[in-house]
């Protein structure tokens, strides 16, 4: 279905900046986050963790801890070994490529591989007692040499994180299109650049946490997660609990940024311990635990070679990426660096692209998806080498970009890697940016400031993202090899009195999807958004779903809702037609009324139709079942490709190197807006996250593998005082991939 065929909408709520329905409880302190929950008889779990980066566990003495006040139980990895049917899985199995994947158990036996590796759990009546007793567990650890630098880890003779593999290399994966070797041999200009994307933390302000509640033969796991259904599916296998006996609920979740897109050791541990003790067990991480054991992001070194003609025409790009994956393979760890490959060429027409990725084990926490997940890394190096080429050619960097943009008439555009960009107008976004940001005025101001000794500069970036994760055939077992699918589900149920409940497989944690999902459903049902209740994040409610990440929840989850609601609308039209003695195709929905074309006085509301569908006043035709409820499982045919242009103005203190962001302009295009206010909020957050990575944030380990940035004292999130006001704007280029035309915006700013 193309966007032009999209239903006009019953009430026109899509497109409006509606205030969020999530907010009233949150602004009054009545949110329900994991640490706000207390269950009768609940115990608290603390995790004893390795202070060493790499060591052999020679003994663990838990006797003193077991005798401490309030302690109910202490378990080591040996003691719980029989409770796990399988290790924490990693799900990427690319055809023809072996990935070294060590067994990854929730509690370690034998050896620890990074600071923070869990070695025992203490369960007590209060959180304080559990923490106190955890300090009394005496673990004898015999240190081994640690390896921290991924390039040194690849050198001959480096200490090995996993001796059984005989190497620290985890895997090598490549993809190429066009003939880069030819481009290189014929290149008039060649640019080479080593680009480091340092390690970062997701650092949502709410730490991770989980509560397991055993009851008879079933267990409920409440967890601060982005992916409740996946957590249930994975834990069901790991713990041999049938899926129907394991319920996973994500309550209000205080931000994720990818850090809660994971199946973590502690989620499995609370379930195992709760079952053992037959009491609810809660664990909430400390910030230090977050910094050391919630997965990190980025940590890639790219060696980029760009080839071009002297007139600025790009002829090819090659990148060899070394990705520091840390000590274990979490659920998507080795795949994340590669995830950016569909947009490796950026907004530009590269005839040849050649990418090679090498994963490396080090004695650090695993990396995995953090906001952007592979795409910001790639965008960063593409944009960096474009600027370097412009300098080499003495060409305006924006002119160089314009010269090589995929033109707006060239969509759908197939890259040399066989990826099809759905739609775009890259030049249009840049033009709009320059309408808002007066470059000439800036240049004269810049010159004046320079005379006063102030060094002010501006940097530009144009980008294309790959979002709407994902067409299952492209990334699933038959595609790049993820052992998963990425459709999304929605169930739309209209109640007899005409209000509705929407169940989504997405699992938002700040995005405001309760509001935008209600807008989408309301239009298609011909009712008010206030009459639509949105439920998500509970595996006992609604069908399986794949969760919220990768800027997917609107373009995949929202589209599933649109489709399910349209099915309901079709059925409502049939019911309406039967009651008004008209043909279903003659019923139209406008302004909240289902009416007969040409006879606007003959009309019914959704409440009247739904009442009749549930309690028919007369018999409905035999082909119409009672009830008004439909489900959709939407698997997109392609990714969606949001894009934009950003400008960042900074002052650099040339004495100290201190950089201050003084102004920021952005134009993003994520297709037509469902709720423009929410889009703006997502862009603001993404920009702040990106500035944080560029100037303030870095996860640092010392040469021995000790974590230096273990708290918010050392890991510096930007505060309000460090950031400027953002000037954001949008263009709207619909995607032909889904009926809403939407593209996703959660990661655009990063």
């Amino acid at each position, binding site marked *: 279905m193309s966007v032009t065929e999209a239903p006009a909408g019953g009430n026109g709520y899509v497109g409006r900046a509606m205030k969020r329905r999530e907010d009233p409880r949150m602004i009054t302190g009545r949110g329900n986050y994991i*640490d*706000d929950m207390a269950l009768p008889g609940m115990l608290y779990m603390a995790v004893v963790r390795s202070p060493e980066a790499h060591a052999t566990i020679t003994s663990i003495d838990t006797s003193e801890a077991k005798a401490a006040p309030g302690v109910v139980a202490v378990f080591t990895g040996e003691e719980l070994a029989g409770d796990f049917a399988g290790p924490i899985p990693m799900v990427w199995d690319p055809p023809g490529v072996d990935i070294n994947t060590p067994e990854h158990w929730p509690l370690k036996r034998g050896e620890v591989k990074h600071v923070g590796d869990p070695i025992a759990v203490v369960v007590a009546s209060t959180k304080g007692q559990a923490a106190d007793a955890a300090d009394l567990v005496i673990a004898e650890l015999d240190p081994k040499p640690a390896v921290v630098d991924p390039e040194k880890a690849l050198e001959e003779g480096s200490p090995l994180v996993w001796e059984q593999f005989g190497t620290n290399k985890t895997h090598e994966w490549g993809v190429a299109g066009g003939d880069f070797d030819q481009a290189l041999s014929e290149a008039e200009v060649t640019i080479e650049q080593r680009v480091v994307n340092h390690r970062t933390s997701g650092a949502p302000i*709410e730490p991770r946490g989980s509560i397991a509640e055993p009851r008879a033969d079933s267990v409920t796991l409440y967890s601060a997660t982005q992916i409740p259904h996946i957590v249930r599916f994975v834990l069901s296998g790991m713990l041999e609990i049938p899926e129907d006996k394991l319920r996973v609920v994500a309550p*209000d979740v*205080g*931000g994720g940024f990818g850090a809660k897109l994971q199946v973590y050791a502690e989620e499995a541990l609370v379930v195992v311990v709760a079952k053992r003790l037959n009491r609810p067990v809660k664990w909430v991480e400390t910030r230090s635990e977050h910094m050391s054991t919630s997965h990190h992001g980025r940590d890639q070194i790219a060696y980029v070679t760009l080839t071009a003609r002297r007139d600025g025409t790009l002829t090819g790009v090659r990148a060899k990426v070394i990705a520091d994956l840390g000590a274990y393979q979490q659920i998507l760890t080795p795949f994340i660096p590669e995830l950016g490959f569909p947009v490796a060429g950026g907004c530009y027409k590269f005839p040849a692209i050649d990418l090679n990725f090498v994963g490396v084990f080090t004695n650090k926490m695993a990396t995995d998806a953090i906001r952007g997940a592979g795409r910001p890394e790639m965008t960063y190096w593409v944009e960096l080498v474009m600027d370097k080429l412009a300098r080499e050619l003495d060409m305006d960097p924006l002119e160089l970009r314009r010269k090589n943009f995929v033109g707006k008439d060239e969509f759908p555009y197939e890259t040399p890697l066989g990826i099809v960009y759905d739609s775009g107008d890259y030049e249009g976004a840049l033009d709009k940016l320059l309408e808002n940001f007066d470059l000439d005025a800036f240049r004269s101001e810049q010159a004046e400031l320079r005379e006063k000794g102030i060094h002010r500069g501006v940097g530009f970036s144009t980008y294309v993202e790959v979002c709407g994760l994902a067409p299952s055939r492209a990334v699933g077992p038959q595609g790049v090899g993820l052992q998963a699918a990425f459709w999304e589900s929605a169930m739309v149920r209209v109640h007899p009195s005409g209000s509705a409940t929407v169940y989504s497989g997405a699992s938002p944690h700040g995005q405001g999807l309760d509001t935008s999902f209600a807008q989408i459903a309301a239009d298609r049902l011909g009712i008010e958004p206030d009459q639509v209740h949105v439920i998500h994040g509970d595996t006992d409610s609604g069908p399986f779903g794949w969760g919220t990440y990768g800027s997917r929840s609107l373009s995949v989850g929202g589209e599933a809702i649109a489709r399910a609601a349209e099915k309901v609308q079709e059925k409502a039209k049939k019911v309406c037609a039967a009651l008004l003695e008209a043909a279903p195709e003659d019923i139209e929905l406008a302004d909240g009324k289902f009416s007969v074309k040409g006879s606007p006085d003959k009309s019914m509301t959704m409440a009247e139709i739904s009442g009749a569908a549930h309690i028919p006043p007369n018999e409905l035709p035999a082909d119409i079942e009672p009830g008004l409820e439909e489900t959709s499982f939407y698997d997109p045919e392609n990714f969606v490709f949001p894009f934009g242009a950003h400008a960042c103005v900074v002052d650099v203190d040339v004495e100290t190197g201190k950089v201050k962001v003084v102004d920021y302009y952005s134009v993003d295009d994520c297709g037509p807006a469902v709720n423009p206010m929410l889009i703006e909020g997502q862009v*603001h957050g993404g920009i702040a996250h990106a500035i944080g990575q560029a100037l303030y944030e870095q996860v640092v380990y010392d040469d021995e593998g000790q974590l230096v940035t273990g708290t918010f004292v050392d890991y510096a999130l930007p505060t*309000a*005082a460090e*950031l400027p006001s953002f000037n954001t704007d949008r263009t709207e280029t619909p995607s032909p991939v889904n009926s809403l035309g939407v593209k996703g915006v959660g990661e655009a700013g990063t």
Partner: protein
Amino acid sequence: MSTPVHLSLTVNGEKREAEVEPRQLLVHYLRDTLGLTGTHVGCDTSNCGACTCHVNGESVKSCTLLAVQADGTEVLTIEGLGQEGNLHPLQAGFWEKHGLQCGFCTPGMIMAAADLLERNPDPSEEEIRHGLEGNLCRCTGYENIVRAVRHAAKASVGQEVPA
């Protein structure tokens, strides 16, 4: 565990008496003993400000104070600031201006902003940014938080800001 200490204070206008562990932090007393879970904990080092509430009318990170240090004081938490139907101008401003996303930092941010407006009823953008630099938000980039505080200030200028 050492001997419990008697604590007597007023929270959101209500007199409270309790025997608390001497080491218990005010934030844990509010959350765990009184069930006032709107005051959040986001770090261990008093950086994030999610636990901000008011003690005797001034904003305080309640993880930096022992519960016993609040003996004899008047404490105000987000629950006491305003409720649905009777929102404080800042709560209304955060809703109106999309000043929150995940909502976790929000109660602390609002309490810090309430103290700021008490001292400076009409702050500039820069004053707001500096006034809130003890509170971390990962979602909003602070842009709409600043707008929310300006919105509340405009709504309140000339009036007494209810605390």
